[in-house]
């Protein structure tokens, strides 16, 4: 790897010793948190599906997957990280590279990020900056290049800040998504990205390879949707477990993930037949929407909801770290190169419900998604989760509330930070909301 000449524009100089100390301390703490999270998930569901064991292993960010990627890198494979779901992973797969999502979920590193950007900035961004500062995140360190899609303000500047260390490819995304010219613009961007990936990895993206990559992601979508469908009925899997499975897709090997998820679904289907529920079927059913929640630290809301008294269960979510990852398949009409690229660009732009978009009717797709999910999964209450500084999600709250009020589904706005200090306070709030839901059920 030929490193870029280091002339840091943003990052402060940090002594080697301090860095090492911080890194070791946070790594240790983080490993403990991962173990603790898993432990609590096991406790919540005494007979957890056997297939979940694989995902538990995979969830250890400092564990086996990191070593696997290191071994692949030895063999000459490139790793391409991305920060938003808009990055065309199929192109990365087709170029024989490994796609990894590198957003950080560490609470502690967000304090470090304060040294570079003000506290008002979204903690996801601050935490990622902090993680890079002390080289904490194994996946961020391993990625040779980063695709940064310029969606929200935070992501835009984050790409610039991380440019101090890595090759960054910015992708300029149009903010109005359903016009022809936006689509044309975005298709050009995707084509350009294809060329860049080809040049960087040295592997040509051929028609056959791209088709294979798209089919891989179709299979993954199939498994993914099957899992989400199983969550729709009476609860057979804890919401946290399913959310963890969804999230491991972001860094796991895609084919293996598909296999394991199918195995999990098989097991769950047997449970459906036996009517073996993880919690009483009349447990309040909750949907989470808003800012993405990243493993490992930012797991407090799902934990709180499912360990609260009265207990709730998360049966659906609208998070770009959750159900939005694989919800939309790539609809290829004819398997020619041009059409495949076109369908990839359409899938990433038009099917997305990210709040960074607007159009004539505003971000109506998101509202539709929420309304549809509420109906499909019999949601009784929606938790609108926003971290302080996440402007786009916070600003869409009013509209979502109005839309959900119309169909008489309560929404709860829960704002928090990347911190553990407010867990007690949040617990009270979540429990009050769940109690209200239970009362509604009884009523």
């Amino acid at each position, binding site marked *: 790897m030929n490193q870029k000449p280091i002339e840091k524009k943003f990052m402060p100089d940090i002594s080697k010793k301090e860095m090492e100390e911080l890194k070791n301390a946070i790594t240790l703490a983080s490993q403990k948190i991962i173990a603790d999270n898993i432990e609590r998930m096991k406790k919540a569901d005494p007979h957890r599906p056997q297939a979940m064991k694989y995902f538990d292993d995979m969830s250890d960010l400092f564990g086996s997957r990191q070593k696997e990627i290191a071994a692949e890198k030895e063999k000459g494979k490139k790793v391409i990280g991305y920060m938003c779901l808009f990055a065309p992973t199929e192109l990365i797969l087709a170029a024989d590279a490994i796609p990894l999502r590198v957003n950080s979920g560490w609470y502690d590193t967000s304090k470090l990020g304060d040294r570079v950007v003000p506290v008002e900035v979204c903690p996801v961004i601050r935490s990622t900056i902090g993680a890079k500062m002390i080289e904490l995140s194994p996946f961020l360190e391993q990625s040779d290049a980063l695709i940064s899609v310029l969606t929200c303000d935070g992501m835009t500047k984050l790409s610039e800040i991380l440019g101090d260390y890595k090759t960054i490819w910015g992708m300029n995304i149009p903010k109005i998504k*359903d016009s*022809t010219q936006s*689509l044309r613009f975005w298709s050009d961007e995707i084509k350009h990205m294809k060329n860049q990936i080809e040049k960087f990895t040295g592997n040509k993206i051929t*028609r056959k390879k791209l088709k294979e990559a798209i089919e891989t992601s*179709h299979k993954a*979508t*199939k*498994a993914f*949707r*099957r899992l989400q*469908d*199983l969550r*729709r*009925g*009476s609860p057979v899997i804890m919401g946290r477990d399913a959310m963890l499975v969804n999230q491991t897709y972001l860094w796991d090997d895609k084919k293996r993930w598909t296999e394991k998820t199918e195995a999990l679904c098989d097991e769950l*289907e047997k449970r*459906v037949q036996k*009517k073996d*529920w993880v919690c*009483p*079927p*009349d447990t309040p059913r909750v949907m989470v929407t808003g800012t993405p929640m990243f493993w490992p630290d930012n797991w407090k809301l799902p934990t709180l909801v499912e360990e609260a008294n009265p207990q709730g269960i998360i049966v659906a979510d609208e998070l770009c770290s959750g159900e939005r990852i694989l*919800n*939309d*398949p790539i*609809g290829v*009409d*004819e*398997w*020619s*190169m*041009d*059409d495949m690229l*076109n*369908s990839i660009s*359409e*899938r990433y732009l*038009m*099917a997305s*419900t990210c709040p960074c978009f607007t159009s004539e009717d505003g971000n*109506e*797709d998101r509202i*539709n*998604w929420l*309304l*549809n999910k509420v*109906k499909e999964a*019999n949601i009784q209450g929606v938790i609108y989760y926003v971290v302080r500084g996440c402007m786009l999600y916070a600003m869409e709250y009013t509209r979502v509330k109005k839309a959900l009020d119309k169909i008489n589904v309560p929404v709860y706005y829960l704002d928090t930070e990347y911190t553990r200090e407010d867990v007690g306070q949040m617990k009270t709030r979540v429990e009050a909301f769940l109690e209200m839901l239970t009362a509604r*059920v009884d009523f």
Partner: protein
Amino acid sequence: MALEIVGDILRLTVLAGLGIAGILAILIWKKNLATKVTFLRFIIQAVSVAAIFYIFTYTIPLLYVLIILLVMTLFLGRFFCGWLCPFAFLMDVQSVVRKVINKRYRIIPSKLNKALHQFRYVLLLFFLLIPIVLWFLEPPPNTDFAVLMAQVMAGPFRPYSIMLAPLIPVIVSWTTAPLIINGVNFSYPYVQDILTWAGQDIGQLIAIVFVGLTLAGSFIIRRSWCRFCPTGVSLAVVNRFKGFKWAPLLHIEKDEEKCTKCGVCKRVCPVGVEEVYEQKGGKIQTSQCMICSRCVEMCPYEDTLKVKLGKKTLFRSRNWLEATKINEEKRKIEPKTH
């Protein structure tokens, strides 16, 4: 005698083909294999070409065929264009060839596409006016009403025949076809009419240009002729006017809430209908839609698009990844335990 036996065998083959197509259609419905709609359509198109070829071996008054088509359109929309038309079949075969050699179709800008859809009314009017103009240029010598009517209906003044031009299969059974190679009679939609109207000399030239343009056009652009086909418009006018909007029993219906506006339906539509994407739910009532059901087949969200006949659902978009193995029954939530 021998010829008659051959004729009987042919007749039976066509009937058997129709029967098989019917069975396949029922199978695909019953099993709800929405992914096989294109395949099914291809079979039906091929069979209908055979059937229409068969019709042309008799001298059926074309007016009856046209009336049947128009009445059918009243209830089925432009079903004929999407599923039966032989000219469309030719274009679809060309699309298959194009797919095999991995060439992508061109997309017409939506403005041009809309202009073409308007242009078809002009073309229809033009086709209808030609005979009248010709009649004025060369008035018939006899002004007796009965003779006049006879001339009008039989002579060059038979505009309805041009309405059925796309129905003319490429290989025809009559011997007055424009082109005969090794005893096989080749024809092409509209060519005969061009020759009739324009005379042999200049007609030949126009015919060659026309055939070349349509062949090349439908190779590059999917269903290019369908965008301004005068026959299509004569069928479409039935659906176009408000008084008739209730009429088509066969239509595509959209559920806005389930739609994420991924744009697949707009892209896969062979004639570039945008209403299916832009409309906010409800019946898709545009006269451009040929109910070929490609959008329904490709829509990745369950139940978002449906092909309906009256109130009965024929096909529904059932995500083509076939993710859902769990039926509605299992998806239900258990009733309260206490």
